[in-house]
């Protein structure tokens, strides 16, 4: 299936400053009419300023205050998240998994860096790194300790390896002492890390 394999290896040997290579490639593709420079700016602006963990935090906060929404979210993540206006690229098929005192969920992609862009934005470097991708499945408790989470030995850790086109969002536990907070105020507490499963939400 990969007869092109040996060929691919030939012209990869010369490392060059990626900033210069990108610049050269951009000007080539623009000059050939293959990409629109304004579209490049729009793509960068979208993920720098518009799509990010604030989206997911709103989903989590809604689930905390609205039991019927939470039920829909856990049963059909894609459609429940779409109710809040989020979906599309790398969030086409969403699964939401719920943390409880007895169950802790952790999301990884061992094969590449699959991540729910539509609700969390683009993944942080550590999520895409070899140490996290390799160890999250074999030593999730050790990984969680590195993030400052020490789970009780009788808790169940569920690791979700994003091997297909399903994207995972962790619904963290609502912290104690937040009973009087509004949905909006709750959303400000929810962190990206908690929605990956490497953190808890603090009041």
């Amino acid at each position, binding site marked *: *299936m*990969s007869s*092109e394999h040996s060929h691919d*290896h030939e012209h*990869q040997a010369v*490392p060059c400053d*990626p900033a210069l290579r*990108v*610049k*050269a*490639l*951009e000007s*080539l*593709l623009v000059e*050939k*009419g*293959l*990409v*629109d420079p*304004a*579209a*490049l700016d*729009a*793509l*960068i602006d*979208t993920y*720098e300023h518009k*799509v*990010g963990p604030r989206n997911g935090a709103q989903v989590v906060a809604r689930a905390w205050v609205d039991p019927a929404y939470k039920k829909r979210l856990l049963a059909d993540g894609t459609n429940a998240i779409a109710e809040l206006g989020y979906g*599309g*690229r790398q969030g086409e*098929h969403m699964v939401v998994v719920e943390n409880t005192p007895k169950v802790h969920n952790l999301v990884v992609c*061992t*094969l*590449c860096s699959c991540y729910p862009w539509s609700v969390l934005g683009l993944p*942080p*470097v*550590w999520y895409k*790194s*070899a*140490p996290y991708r*390799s160890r999250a*499945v*074999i030593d999730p*408790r050790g*990984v969680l300790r*590195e*993030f400052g989470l020490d789970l009780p030995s*009788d808790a*169940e*850790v*569920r*690791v*979700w*390896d*994003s*091997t*297909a*086109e*399903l994207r995972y969002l962790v619904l963290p536990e609502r912290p104690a002492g937040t009973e009087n907070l509004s949905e909006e105020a709750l959303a400000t507490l929810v962190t990206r890390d908690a929605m990956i499963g490497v953190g808890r939400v603090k009041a």
Partner: protein
Amino acid sequence: MNGIHDMGGMQDMGPIEYEKNEPVFHAPWEGKSFALNNAAGAWRKWNIDAGRHQIELIPPADYLRMSYYEKWLQRLEELLVKTGLVTQAEIESGTPAPGSPKATPPLTAERVPSVLRTGGPASRTIPGPSRFQAGQHVRARNINPTGHTRLPRYVRGKTGTIHRDHGAYVFPDTNAHFLGEKPQHVYSVRFAARELWGEQASPHDAVYLDMWDDYLDPA
């Protein structure tokens, strides 16, 4: 392909390096690498699986050395040449070959929001019942394809339980090589941590993988 990208279960890769208040892009070129991949992808000369496979084809030592967006850049250069959108000579010179026609970009700034909002759903409708039901025991096939696959090494030959049927999806093992979508059911399969890693793992823990029908046998 049993490549370096298939990292699940490896050890000694070092500590997880966490960056507080990490920016989305660490330098302008990272954003450009990301955006160029997306904008050039709009030509639909390749699919998401072919794109992933192209990153897997980066030689192991380079794969470990390169940053994420460097891999994206490498992948894009390779795919552009492979699909004929540009030539290797053009990549090297940074200028279009003399007399080459000027194209019209398929992705304009105006279309970016709707294109991102639509995404690229991989679900498909196929006739007939699914082969497995929730609760059924299955074994991951012990196969070693030399092309693209989303069946990690660490789970091959292991026994798990069907947790949920996600419905039918495009099959990456064929789609990555432009051999058709071959849509089939994808199941969430639960593997006990001890089945995967032995007694050193907690008896309570489990790893869930999304697995295509072709990766599974009844157990």
